[in-house]
C-alpha cells in the first residue's frame, strides 16, 4: 500500500487556485461566443447559422443568449465568422434568476463553508454529468471550497440539475426537491437544463427545468467546464458575483469585426 502513498505525494498538488487567482490552463474551457457589433446583413447570417437561436439580431449587431448556446462552433468556424469568442475568464459565466433574491432561499452564514449538493441527472447526454464528476478530481477538488456531494436529499442544501428534464425524470426530480430541507437552492447546469439545448421542447423533453423547479443559478455551456460549474456553486453560495446570461451587442466594447 505504501506505493500509493508515495505515488500520491509524488504527484504533488494539482488543484487549481481558482477562485483565489484566475485559472488559465489551456483546454480547460471551450470559451463562449461574444455579443458582437456587426452589420445587419452579417448579423442575419450569423443568426441563421445558429441551430438553437442562441444568437438574436439586434440593432447594434448580434445578441447572445448563453442559455441556448450548445457550443456547436458554427458561428466561430468557417471563412466568414465575425463572431468573437471569449477565452479568458469565460468560465465565470453563471447567472442568477429572479428567484434567487427571495429571502427564504438565501443561505445563512452557517452555509459559508459547507454546502451539500445532491446531483440529479434529469436526462442529459452524459457530458454535463461527467463535468460535474470532474469537480471531485484533484484538479478542481471542490471539497477545498466547502462543497460536498451528498447521497440523500435529506442532507442536501443545493440541488444541482443537469439535463433537459425528460418525462420519466419529472417525478424523481420533484421528489428529490421536495425531500430537501429549507433553505434550498437549485443550480441548473448546462444548456439542456436551461433551455432544452438541441433537444428543445418535445414529447419527452421539457425544454429545461426552469418551468418545473424554481431555479436560482444558471450555468450555461454544453457542457459547462468544471470551473463554470464551480463558479455557479460559488454564485449560489453568494461568494461570487453572477454574470449576465443575455449579452447585448450594444454593451460590447469590441469594434465591429
Amino acid at each position: 500500500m505504501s506505493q500509493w502513498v508515495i505515488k500520491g505525494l509524488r504527484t504533488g498538488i494539482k488543484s487549481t487556485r481558482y477562485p483565489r487567482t484566475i485559472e488559465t490552463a489551456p483546454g480547460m474551457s471551450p470559451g463562449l461566443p461574444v455579443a458582437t457589433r456587426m452589420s445587419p446583413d452579417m448579423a442575419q447570417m450569423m443568426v441563421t447559422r445558429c441551430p438553437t437561436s442562441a444568437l438574436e439580431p439586434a440593432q447594434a449587431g448580434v445578441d447572445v443568449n448563453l442559455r441556448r448556446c450548445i457550443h456547436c462552433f458554427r458561428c466561430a468556424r468557417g471563412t466568414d465568422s465575425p463572431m468573437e469568442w471569449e477565452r479568458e475568464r469565460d468560465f465565470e459565466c453563471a447567472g442568477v434568476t429572479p428567484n434567487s433574491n427571495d429571502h427564504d432561499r438565501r443561505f445563512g452564514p452557517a452555509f459559508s463553508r459547507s454546502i451539500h449538493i445532491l446531483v440529479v441527472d434529469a436526462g442529459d447526454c452524459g457530458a454535463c454529468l461527467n463535468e460535474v464528476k470532474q469537480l471531485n478530481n484533484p484538479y478542481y477538488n471542490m471539497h477545498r471550497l466547502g462543497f460536498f456531494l451528498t447521497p440523500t436529499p435529506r442532507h442536501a442544501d443545493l440541488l444541482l440539475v443537469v439535463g433537459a428534464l425528460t418525462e420519466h425524470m419529472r417525478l424523481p426530480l420533484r421528489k428529490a426537491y421536495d425531500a430537501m430541507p429549507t433553505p434550498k437552492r437549485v443550480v441548473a447546469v448546462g444548456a439542456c437544463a436551461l433551455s432544452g439545448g438541441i433537444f428543445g421542447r418535445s414529447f419527452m423533453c421539457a425544454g429545461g427545468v426552469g418551468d418545473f423547479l424554481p431555479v436560482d443559478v444558471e450555468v450555461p455551456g454544453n457542457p459547462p467546464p468544471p470551473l463554470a460549474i464551480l463558479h455557479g456553486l460559488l454564485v449560489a453560495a453568494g461568494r461570487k458575483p453572477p454574470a449576465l446570461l443575455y449579452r447585448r451587442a450594444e454593451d460590447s466594447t469590441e469594434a465591429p469585426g
Partner: protein
Amino acid sequence: MPPELLRVLEEAKARWTGKVRPSLNGGDAAACHLECETSELPAICNWLFAERECSFGGLIVEQGTPWQLRYVFYGQDSGWTHVVTYLHAGEERVPSVSRLIYAADWHEREAEDLFGLEFEGHPRLGDFVLHNDVWQEGVAPMRKGFDGSRPVTNREPDLNWKPRRIVEEAGAFGMPVGPVHSAAIAPVYFQLETVGEDVIRAQPRLFYAYRGLEKIAEGRQADDALLIAERISGTSAFAHSLGLCQGVEGLCQVEVPERASWLRVFLAEFERLRHHVAAIAGICESTGLAVSAAQAAILEEELLRISGSLTGHRYLFGMNVFGGLATDLDDAVCRRAAVQIAQVSDKLAVLQGMLSTSSSFLDRLEDVGKVSVSNARDFGLVGPIARASGLSRDLRKVAPYCGYDRVEFEVPQESEGDGYARLRLFFREAEQSARIISEIVQRIPAGRFRTPETALRPGAALGWVEAPGGAALHWIRLGEGGVVERYRIVTPSFANWHGFRLAAENFAFQDFPIILASFALSVHENDR
C-alpha cells in the same frame, strides 16, 4: 467485396429457393440483402446467427407502405448481411426472433413500445422504453402520425405499477436503488432481489434519460441530426457523429479527403483513450482505492484538456461534418498533442503496473461479475465487454472504415470475463489507441480537411463505427432537401445493458458498484 459474402448469398439462395430475394451491393458498404417473407424470418436469422456465426447488429424499423424491418448481421469475415422483411399496413405483426436470438430481445421490445408493432411469441412486451407509470399502453411515438414536438397531454398511466420480481424465496425482497443515486450517476433504477447480504439478481430499469432522439431528428436537416448524434452520449460524441457522417457520406457518395480520414482516426482513438481512462477511474473508485482513482481522474482531466486545446471542445463536439472535419488541425499542434497523449499513456502504464500489484484491489475484481463467452454471444455483447469474455468482434477489423485497414493495431482480448479481465482490457485498448495516435500523427497527409460541398440526396444508408463502448450502427434515411426521414441509432450500451444482468447475479451486495463500474456502461447512450 469479401468472398465470404458471396458464399452467404449463394447458400441463402440455395436454401430458400424462391423464398428469399438476395441482392448485393458493392463498394465500401458491401452488404448482402436478403429479402424474405415474414414467415421465413426466424429461420433465416437463426441460420445467420447460429450456423454462420454472425453477430446480430440490430433491428431497424421503418414505417412506410409497406413497413420495412431490417435485421442487420455482421460476421467476422463476411461483412454485412441485412435480412429485410416487409409488413403491409393493417397486419403489423411479425414473428419474434428473440427466442432464437436473445440479442434481439430488447430491439423487439423497443420496436413494440415505440412503433406499436406486435412481435408474436415474444414473452415480455410493454413497459420498456416508455414507462408504464408515466404513459399508458398504446402510445407509439415513433409512428409517423405522432407529433413529437409537443407534450402528450392525455395520460392514463398505471400508477399501481411496481417493478417486476422473479425471485421466489422466503424472506426475499426487492431493494430499490435509484433513479436518483447517491453520487453523480446517470438516472437508472436497479431492482436488487436479495435475501440480505447476497443479491440473487439485479435488473436495471432504463430509459429515464430517454430523450426521443430518433423521433426529434425526424424532419430536421441532416446537419442538425449531426448535433443530435454528438449528444447521444457526450462521452462518445465523436464516434457517434462519425457513424452518422459515414452513413450520409456513403449515401451521398462523398469522397472524404485523405487528411480528414486520418484526423478522424486520430480523434476517434483519442476519444477511445479518454473513455477507457474514465472507465478505469470508475473501477478504481468503485473499489475504494482512493489514490488510484485520483490518479486516473487526473489522467482523464489531462486528456480532456488536451482535446480542449486541440479542438476547442473538451468532448470533441462540433468536429465532424459531412465530408470531413469542421476545422483543420495544425500539424504541429497535433504532434504536440500526440506527445502529451503519449505521456498520459506512459502514466497509465505506471498506474496499471501499480494496480496489478495491489492485492487488495485485485481481490475485489477477480471472479466478480463473470460473463461467459457463450452468454456474451447469446446476449450479443459488444466492444470491450465482449472482448473481455473472449468474444472478439471489432468493426474496425470486421468492416474497416476511415482507412483503419491501413493502420496497424491489435484488438486485445481476454478470456476470463470477470471484472479484472475487463479492467485489463481497458488498459490494453487504451494503450493500443495511444499507439495508433503516435503512429498516424507522423503520417497525416497534407491536403483538404473537408470536401467543399456535400450534395445531400434522398435515400438510406448504414453508417457504422466501433465506438469506445463497442459497435454502433447509424441508419439514416434522407428525404428531399436533406431532411431526415428516419434515423435509427443502435448503440453499444444498448447491447451491453441487456447483458448486464449476466454479471449481476448471485453476488455480494458490496460488489455491485464494482460490477457496474467494470461494465463502464453509458445510460445516456442506451436511452438516447
